[in-house]
């Protein structure tokens, strides 16, 4: 297809604003996928994605559209991950497009994360088509949302398309707008090959399959290809497109979107954002914007049963084939034995990985409390990076600790400004600015939406910040964040001793002003979370060897089954087996059995 008839676009939408339904409708209306296939395709998608209602991995689809101008167009829809943890992946997906459908729920309006993606798209010169979706809903306020789009982003009123993906309304208008409004891909078909990798996944037969957008030149034949950032080279095994299943084609032309099977065995050699070129005739410059995926959140993953260590290693290596942003390295803990320190893009990413390891690989795992990455300058002027509280040097050896800060945007109706302010300031946040997205005069008092910007330590928003934000704004607030800088902080490590033994996996790093309170709260929480043992167990919190709090778990006194009635030994044994299963889920530290929840107790200190 010549470039003038190609359109590459993606959909920007908040979770639940109807992105998938709209994509399904487009595939259906263009005859790419039948209704029946749609259902099957849904069944094939990852369980976790469906359960969490989010897209974890990007996907792409090519459609053929016979337009009202009598021309036939090739539409490439590039799906984008829908969660703030995957912001970099989103940016690469956007980079592969010339335009985007901006889908906003007619009853919800613009959300913070959507806005962040809009700005991202604008900075990459994407042409946006605003779509107000779900106009069929009883609470829909399409006019108000259209007005918001006008005010906040600066669309013209008549650019806005009103749609109901669920009922099929507005779909034709959207399909027409795509070829009319979104520009054709630029790029010189005769220049040396430049193709952007916006996603990749591992296939047992074809090796790493890179999802690509061809910017210059074309991909064809068997000539060796190279990756400009990692320096790897490979013989392409196959080219093709997604429709939406993989369909081989002899070539991918300039401006087209598709895949190349690389035969590479390691997804890390074929990273999102890298540029593919010809090995023999490389392009002068790679495409801009490449960034190594940078984990933000770190946690230890340990098998509860140390016999599963090798299986865990195998599972991580297989999982990371498909997920270049998952990094891991062996780690050992005095308390937990051998495991892995893993880096994640965010907490959701951590949850997904831990769940997949357990479900898909049948492992029983223990995850330690997540941590951010601290920078430490030692007294001997050495610079080290600490992503595990247990690894923080002795206070006497620390000249300075710096922690990561994030810039966050919160969008909320103005009546919740007070609550948001309070939440952010109790977490060491600093107010940056505030902007009304709607004129207050047009609306009932407190209804106008406002965007609040703060700087806040990453560690403070790591865990339950989002839930708390939702809770204190009746679910109205939305959040976007990005890491901004490292700032020095007065941080100390609080050690926890269980039965006199320091349990490194329970340590926490906290602001020194909070150390006493948090130490006390943590041992109190642990007292409730660690079941009573056969003997009394003292729990202590210490800072630099000085005990700051103490609790005692009393010895258990009663665990006995009543009579074995009428000789029913089997039933009695089943009850014991159930208890035994519970025990297996716990980690033995010294001679104390500690359940998974205890290692997460540090996350729940704020419930107090």
């Amino acid at each position, binding site marked *: 297809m010549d470039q003038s008839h190609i359109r590459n676009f993606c959909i920007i939408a908040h979770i639940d604003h109807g992105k998938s339904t709209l994509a399904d409708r487009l595939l259906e209306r263009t005859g790419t996928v039948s209704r029946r296939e749609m259902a099957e395709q849904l069944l094939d998608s990852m369980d976790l994605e469906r359960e969490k209602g989010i897209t974890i991995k990007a996907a792409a689809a090519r459609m053929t559209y016979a337009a009202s101008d009598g021309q036939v167009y090739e539409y490439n829809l590039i799906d984008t991950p829908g969660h703030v943890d995957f912001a970099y992946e989103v940016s690469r997906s956007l980079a592969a497009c010339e335009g985007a459908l901006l889908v906003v729920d007619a009853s919800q309006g613009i959300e913070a994360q959507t806005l962040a993606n809009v700005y991202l798209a604008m900075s990459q010169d994407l042409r946006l088509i605003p779509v107000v979706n779900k106009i069929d809903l009883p609470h829909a306020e399409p006019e108000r949302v259209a007005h918001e789009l006008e005010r906040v982003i600066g669309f013209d009123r008549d650019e806005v398309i009103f749609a109901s993906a669920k009922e099929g309304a507005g779909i034709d208008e959207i399909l027409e707008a795509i070829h009319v409004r979104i520009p054709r891909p630029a790029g010189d078909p005769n220049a040396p090959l430049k193709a952007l990798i916006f996603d990749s996944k591992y296939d047992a037969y074809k090796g790493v399959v890179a999802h690509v957008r061809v910017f210059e030149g074309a991909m064809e034949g068997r000539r060796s290809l190279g990756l400009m950032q990692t320096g790897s080279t490979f013989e392409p095994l196959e080219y093709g497109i997604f429709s939406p299943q993989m369909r081989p084609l002899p070539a991918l032309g300039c401006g087209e979107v598709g895949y190349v099977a690389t035969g590479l065995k390691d997804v890390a050699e074929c990273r999102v954002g890298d540029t593919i070129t010809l090995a023999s005739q490389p392009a002068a410059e790679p495409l801009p914007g490449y960034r190594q995926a940078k984990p933000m959140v770190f946690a230890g993953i340990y098998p509860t049963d140390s016999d599963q260590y090798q299986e865990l290693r195998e599972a991580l290596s297989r999982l990371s084939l498909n997920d270049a942003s998952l990094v891991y390295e062996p780690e050992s803990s005095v308390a937990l034995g051998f495991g892995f320190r893993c880096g994640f893009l965010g907490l959701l990413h951590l949850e997904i990985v831990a769940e997949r390891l357990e479900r898909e690989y049948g492992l029983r795992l223990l995850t330690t409390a997540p941590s951010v990455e601290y920078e430490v300058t030692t007294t001997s002027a050495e610079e080290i990076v600490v992503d595990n509280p247990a690894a923080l040097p002795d206070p006497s050896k620390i000249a300075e600790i710096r922690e990561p800060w994030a810039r966050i945007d919160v969008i909320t109706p103005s009546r919740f400004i007070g609550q948001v302010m309070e939440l952010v300031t109790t977490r060491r946040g600093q107010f940056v600015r505030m902007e009304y997205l709607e004129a207050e005069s047009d609306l009932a008092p407190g209804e106008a939406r406002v965007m609040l910007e703060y700087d806040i330590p990453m560690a403070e928003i790591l865990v339950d910040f989002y839930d708390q934000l939702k809770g204190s704004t009746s679910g109205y607030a939305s959040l976007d964040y990005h890491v901004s800088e490292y700032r020095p902080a007065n941080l100390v490590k609080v050690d926890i001793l269980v039965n006199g033994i320091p349990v490194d996996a329970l340590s926490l790093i906290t602001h020194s002003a909070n150390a006493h309170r948090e130490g006390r709260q943590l041992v109190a929480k642990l007292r409730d979370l660690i079941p009573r043992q056969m003997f009394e167990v003292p729990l202590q919190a210490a800072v630099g060897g000085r005990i700051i709090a103490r609790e005692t778990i009393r010895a258990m006194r009663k665990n*006995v089954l009543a009579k074995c009635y*009428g000789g029913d030994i089997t039933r009695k044994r089943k009850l*014991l087996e159930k208890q035994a299963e519970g025990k297996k889920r716990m980690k033995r530290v010294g001679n104390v059995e500690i359940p998974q929840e205890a290692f997460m107790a540090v996350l729940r200190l704020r419930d107090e």
Partner: protein
Amino acid sequence: MTSLAVYIHIPFCTVKCGYCDFNAYAGMDRLKAGYTRALLLEIEGWREAMAGHDVTSIAFGGGTPGEMPAGDLAAIIGALRSAGTIARDAEIGLEANPGSIGPDHLCQLAAAGVNRISFGAQSFEAGELRFLDRIHSPEAIGVAVANARRAGIASVNLDLIYGLPGQSPARWRWTMVQALAQQPDHLSLYALTVEDGTILARRVQDGSVILPGPDEVADLYELASARLEESGFHQYELSNWARPGHESRHNLTYWSDGDYLGLGAGAHGYIRGERYENVAHPREYIRRLSAQPHSHRAAVAHAYRPSVATAMADWLSLGLRRTAGVDPGAFLARFGSGLYGIFGSVLGECAEAGLVEMSGERTRLTRAGRLLHGEVSVRLLLAVEESGGACPGSLSAILGPQG
């Protein structure tokens, strides 16, 4: 002759108590005659298998066997006598509700050979009895005990339940004092257990019943334990106390890995290493036996042979219920491997925590360990599971001292 215990399940009750999840049914009394006929057929089916065994105990449990016509129970005992050898001193016991068994009935049972009766007294507080849905009054217990004595029944047991909602140590002491005043020969004390699917479970779930915590229940146990010892009772199992010579031989069979037949609906048996369970519903039980009258397996719903590992864990866990504990030599004789090879480190840990004592001949729970039998058992179960049932020392046991 190997010894054999026989358990006979009588699944009928006047009222089904809210805490009870035993195989018992109210309002099915019209099935009783057919049920007795089915039991007689089942006994007939076992005739061959019983040969060469010495029946040392017969126990009627339920349900409420005390509400079965005495003639039916006599016929069942008679059928067992004709099917096999009953030891002269065999214990023939029966569970009864103190409120629903009269003097004549007790005399007829004694005449049929019943020499042990166990009354479901449960409490001497009227309010507590109401809470438990029991149909008898506290006074009825004394009357029933006196009638049993008069009928010449040699051994009288009282079952009591503790750990009831709001039960203070003082109230529990009162029940103990009253129970001891009846001069029973044996006492079984059971902590109230919330079983899934019972009315009690629902009431606990919805918060209308609040049960005491484990520490309070432990206090009640210790209080009773001390009281009973002062009164000349000897604790021989976690929940059982007896005057000398009145230990229940039937129950000791369960804890000592002995063979027992289970007859009747939902009964459990354990014979020659196989455990089996009969169909639970009395109507289905009757149907099965009339369809296959001469097979001892007619009513069996499920049977299996525990793995060596499971058998070891059972042996040890059950044996530790006895205050006498277990004999490591007996373990070696039974399994061909040393007790401490597999369980040594777990038993050692428990000993260190003061729950187990290992002294030469016997391994037993300490006084503190008695209330933590479950904890110890779970650890034993995990230990044997981890060892994969592999028995260090078993090779030498097979090869003998020369190997």
